[in-house]
């Protein structure tokens, strides 16, 4: 066992421990924080395997952006402040999905690379990675970014949906932030007319 192995085992243990905490934690924010630790641990694994670029991208994208947005969304919507707990009671389903994915992925990886041995781990330079992405694999790369863009637009459409379960509330909010409400016919116009003026003005000064 070399020093590298020791470090790898330590980082892997940290990552696995954080992952277990992510799914067992009863507190939603604790789970999200453990997820951030897991993602950072994955970056550590990449670093030990000499994939410096991948590790840093993992850090900036998954820890710095995804995990932060996750926490941000949680705090903005439903995170109880302090020590209260929130649990969706979905353990069984989650276990089944995660187990199935694990079997599938590990089977694929073992089938593809199971017999390959690597003598010396060396990282590719950033130049090689750049040329590989933007010359050889540019089509899949662009397709992926289109996929992300589609997801982004979809999320915005969902968030801006005008009629929802809480249609009336949404309308009042719209007036609060200063949008000019439409005066054309339909249910919304009726709602508008029936909403007392004092209620519309409430909260307008925030």
């Amino acid at each position, binding site marked *: 066992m070399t020093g590298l192995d020791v470090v790898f085992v330590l980082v892997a243990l940290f990552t696995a421990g954080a992952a277990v905490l992510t799914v067992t934690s009863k507190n939603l924010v604790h789970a999200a924080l453990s997820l951030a630790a897991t993602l950072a641990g994955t970056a550590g694994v990449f670093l030990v395997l000499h994939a410096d670029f991948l590790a840093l*991208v993992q850090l*900036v994208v998954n*820890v710095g952006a995804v995990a*932060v947005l996750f926490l941000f969304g949680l705090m903005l919507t439903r995170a109880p*402040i302090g020590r209260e707990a929130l649990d969706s009671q979905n353990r069984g389903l989650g276990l089944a999905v995660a187990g199935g994915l694990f079997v599938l992925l590990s089977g694929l990886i073992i089938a593809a690379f199971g017999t390959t041995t690597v003598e010396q781990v060396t990282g590719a330079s950033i130049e090689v990675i750049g040329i590989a992405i933007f010359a050889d694999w540019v089509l899949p790369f662009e397709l992926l970014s289109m996929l992300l863009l589609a997801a982004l637009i979809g999320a915005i459409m969902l968030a801006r949906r005008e009629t929802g379960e809480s249609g009336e509330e949404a309308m009042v909010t719209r007036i609060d932030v200063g949008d000019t409400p439409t005066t054309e016919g339909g249910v919304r116009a009726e709602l508008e007319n029936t909403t007392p003026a004092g209620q519309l003005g409430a909260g307008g000064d925030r």
Partner: protein
Amino acid sequence: MNSALVSPANHAVAQSASVMDVGDGFLLPVLLKIAFVLGLFFVVPLVGGYMEHKVMGRMQHRRGPVEAGPFGSLQLVADGIKFIQKEDTIPRAADKWVFAAAPGVALVPAMLIFLVLPFGPGVFAVDLELGLLYALAITSVSVLGVLMGGWASANKFSLFGGLRAGAQLIAYELPLIIVAITVAVQAGTLSLVGIVEAQSTFMLAGTDINLWYVFPQFVGFGIFFVAAMAELSRPPFDMPIGDSELVFGYMTEYSGIKFAMFLLTEYGGMITMSALMVVLYLGGWQLLPGVPLPGCDGAGGLFDCGFLGTVLGVAVTMGKILALVFVMVWARVAYPRLREDQLQRISWLVLVPLSLLNLAVVTVFKVVF
């Protein structure tokens, strides 16, 4: 400086030698580097803090910070002693572990950036091939600490402060990264030392007038400066701790040494952001564009400077850094706080499009000339 640095024009292979690399042993250089980075981290931000005290004291006609001790130097010591002897309070409803860990999560990334910052010819701990990406990636982790602190305090003011900080840091990270990448495109390398090197050989197209990147990319420099101030939540971008509405935002419940750690994060951030600007736009340790340090004979007069040249190089870099810190303090005193909607608007509707345009223009010029 004995390990001769042969750095040819193609800086893709440049792995420069540092003064820290003494001998062939493993332990001694590593210990030296740790001591170097820790020393930098605990000394340089204090200089920034001292400067802020004095400059703000002068500009706002508050004499205290200027008068305490010789040249006002004891004000900071008094602050330090005050922070240490304060009671370390934790609110009863707070999530104790997250609350206690938050200042550390904010502080450690701010400390780790010092690993790659070059402060002079050969004066850096490591010259990573991905130095710039490393600095940006590490910076983005600091937000976690702020969000953790805001949530764990179990206080609505703290929570709102954390939320505002999260929204602000995400919004301003984007233009910051885009303009930094633009410099990397122009220099053709991500190594911070490599970028300084590339600036020493960057010529105005068709002439032999040496230029720093601040001249062709003054828009990028401006965006970087504004985004850096916003990333650090410095006034006028201090909505997350807006004291007129949120008490002190995510730091409201913190006291004593934990509060001091958040403050140290901010001062450390001021120094690292300024140092990044010096490296990316202001030619690192060059005296003037095209004027190398005296006594240097490495690539473009950037390395192998001998003792005097090295000391002078560090002095030049620190001078530039402190000049930028001064401007940040000046902006704090001169401008009122932005409103939250103005703040988001500036980033998404002005800075992001401008930085994308800047990237496009620089890329076209790089290919054409």
